[in-house]
């Protein structure tokens, strides 16, 4: 059992009104500085100048921007939304009081209060023990805790802006090497206008002594959040990283187009966990975040491992396929996913496992839960390249339906170019049964608790992959996300 003081409990968060279950819907009233509305080369230059970036990065951004102007939005996902006007949004919004990295004493108390309310205390004496946090507020990182302690063992954990300033050689060596700037519409947009995010470097032979975590908060209206995260695990190192996300309740949709790149060298491992709880919109589908995210990791070294665990409960639309490029011999890719959609939410999510090296192995466990009028799609690719001798994949896709107005879809793509490959795919679809709910209620559980229990059981295999400190919170979140889905 996790100690309660270690888990980011939302008890202090204000109870939201209309959406009922969403407890993070408040707005922080703080003076902001923004780039002019709209997107053109000047916007890109503005962001780069704001961050005092080197010339090579500005050039990289501009190349991305030019590529983006010739691209069109992907339309193959099973999601529907009105066209996005990319000129009708802000691409940079930062609290005025955060001009650069500062000590916590100098941070605007309103920001500290915001994170307190979200259950992420940043002040030294109140921090979550054993978890270092990078707090990203709209476009900028406002604080990173435990930096000095981590630096003692050579671990670099800071905002992307700081990394560009202080570790330009590492950033330049790895940025865009897993997700190139021309990769896809949203990743390319991100490459042009990304504002901040987290940077992690674990030196050879180091097992990171604490959980690293980034807490993303969207606050400003009409603003997109484009963060970029880069994590490098050098030879024989290990890190467990977790990200959490929340946003205020607003009637307009907001775009969140992030890019995450992971690089794992020989014998190293990255465990990357996400608890995504962006505002999902109201029961009628008004508002909510468009979560269009590109996450990809490269197992470059032999015996390297990447494991993605995601609990996706928020966002109006989720478009997200955390992937592994299994390049190194004996490298391992894992993808554990829970995607819960309720009311009018839509999720099209899954993974890509690209097997290049010999004896590479991948595991996919996907649990999709749909309630209300929601639509949930698992979309996954398993590709075995000719050189991937003895590659193995096992895929398990389970869908659970609550009610009779929602939908679940499974779209697996399997491509094998090597006869020694062994690929297994199992899929099930079931409905939460009246028998189960009645049985639980007969034992004294409320209908909401009964649904939460049955769904948590359905997701157990994935929840067990989460760092213990977060597993308890994730279980609660699973229940909260489905409130109002029965009875």
């Amino acid at each position, binding site marked *: *059992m996790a100690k309660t003081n270690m888990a980011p409990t939302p008890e202090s968060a204000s109870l939201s009104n209309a959406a009922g279950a969403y407890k993070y819907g408040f707005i922080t009233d703080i003076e902001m500085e923004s780039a002019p509305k709209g997107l053109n080369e000047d916007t890109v230059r503005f962001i780069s100048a704001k961050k005092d970036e080197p010339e090579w990065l500005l050039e990289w951004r501009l190349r991305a921007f030019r590529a983006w102007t010739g691209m069109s939005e992907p339309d193959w996902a099973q999601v529907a939304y009105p066209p996005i006007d990319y000129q009708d949004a802000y691409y940079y919004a930062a609290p005025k009081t955060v001009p650069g990295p500062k000590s916590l004493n100098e941070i605007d108390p309103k920001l500290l209060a915001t994170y307190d309310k979200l259950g992420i205390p940043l002040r030294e004496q109140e921090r979550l023990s054993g978890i270092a946090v990078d707090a990203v507020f709209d476009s900028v990182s406002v604080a990173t805790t435990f930096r000095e302690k981590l630096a003692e063992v050579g671990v670099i954990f800071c905002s992307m802006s700081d990394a560009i300033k202080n570790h330009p050689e590492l950033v330049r060596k790895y940025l865009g090497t897993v997700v190139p700037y021309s990769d896809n519409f949203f990743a390319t947009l991100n490459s042009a206008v990304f504002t901040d995010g987290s940077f992690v470097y674990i030196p050879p032979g180091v097992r990171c002594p604490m959980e690293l975590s980034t807490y993303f908060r969207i606050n400003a209206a009409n603003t997109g959040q484009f963060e970029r995260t880069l994590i490098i695990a050098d030879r024989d190192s290990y890190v467990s990283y977790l990200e959490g996300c929340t946003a205020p309740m607003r009637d307009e949709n907001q775009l969140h187009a992030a890019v995450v790149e992971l690089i794992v060298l020989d014998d190293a491992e990255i465990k990357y966990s996400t608890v995504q709880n962006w505002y999902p919109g109201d029961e009628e589908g008004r508002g909510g975040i468009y979560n269009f995210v590109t996450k990809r990791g490269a197992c470059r070294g032999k015996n390297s491992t990447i494991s993605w665990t995601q609990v996706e409960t928020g966002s109006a639309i989720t478009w997200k396929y955390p992937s592994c490029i299994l390049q190194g011999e004996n490298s391992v890719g894992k993808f554990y996913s829970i995607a819960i959609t309720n009311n009018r939410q839509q999720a099209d999510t899954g993974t890509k496992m690209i097997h290049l090296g010999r004896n590479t192995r991948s595991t996919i466990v996907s649990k999709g839960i749909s309630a209300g009028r929601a639509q949930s799609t698992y979309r996954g690719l398993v590709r075995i390249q000719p050189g991937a001798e003895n590659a193995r994949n096992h895929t398990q896709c389970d869908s659970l339906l609550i009610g009779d107005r929602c939908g679940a879809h499974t779209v697996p793509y399997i491509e094998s170019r090597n006869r020694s490959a062994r690929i297994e795919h199992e899929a099930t679809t079931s409905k939460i*049964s*009246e*028998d*189960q709910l*009645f*049985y*639980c*209620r*007969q*034992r*004294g*559980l*409320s*209908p909401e*608790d009964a649904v939460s*229990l*049955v769904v*948590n*059981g*359905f*997701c*157990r*295999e994935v929840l067990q992959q989460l760092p213990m400190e977060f597993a308890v919170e994730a279980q609660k979140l699973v229940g909260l996300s489905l409130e109002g889905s029965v009875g």
Partner: protein
Amino acid sequence: MKPPERHSAMTDSPAPLLEIAGLSANVAGKAILNGLDLVLPAGEVHAIMGPNGSGKSTLAYLLAGREGYERTAGSVRFLGRELLDMPPEERAREGVFLGFQYPVEIPGVPTASFLRAAVNAVRRHRAEPELDAAQFLKILKERRKQLNIGDEMLGRALNTGFSGGEKKRAEILQMLMLEPRLAILDETDSGLDIDALKIVADGINALRRPDRGILMITHYRRLLDYVSPDRVHVLSEGRIVRAGGVELAHELEKTGYGAASVAA
């Protein structure tokens, strides 16, 4: 509308634990119970016997509050309150326990976790402090030994992949943990070998208490050899057609249910 108070004259004696009067009920539009009367005083164990299709399980589900079981007439008073007006979870929290004929599988939910959630739901309702994991496991350990249930089984997902005997023992364990006022056991004896039957019977006997009533629904006399009922009711075509002492069960075994209903 409240049904008339049938025991208004008995002001000194407390309301019986369970009092069913003139109960009729439909399932999917079909009349299954037709004016059933039954009184179970606290401290007693009653058996309800009857042929297949006589309405035994319907009665059990109706008392527990399953959807689709619709009362058309009559009343069910539980400790003086109208039971059928409460949602199923409130009945459970007030102390009504149904031992299922076919316990339901809940994949991924360890038996111990499920039980703790249930016990704490009941404790919250009684304004008692919830049990933490350590306190709960201590009590669970004592009770599980009584039923010859291994630790390993409690870590497995509830009823998932359990044998028939394991499922029934798990039901009795839940009953012991929840300490109900009224236990309704729907064919808990079916599908048990003699050893398992004895263990289950011991569990039921352990629960006998002056403030508790047990309603055993069974098709066969076998269970009654180990749990001696205070009274036996014969259910036929949705009504109690005969009632008597335990000797009635023996008689039924000789003559069959047909004779019993004719005798009514």
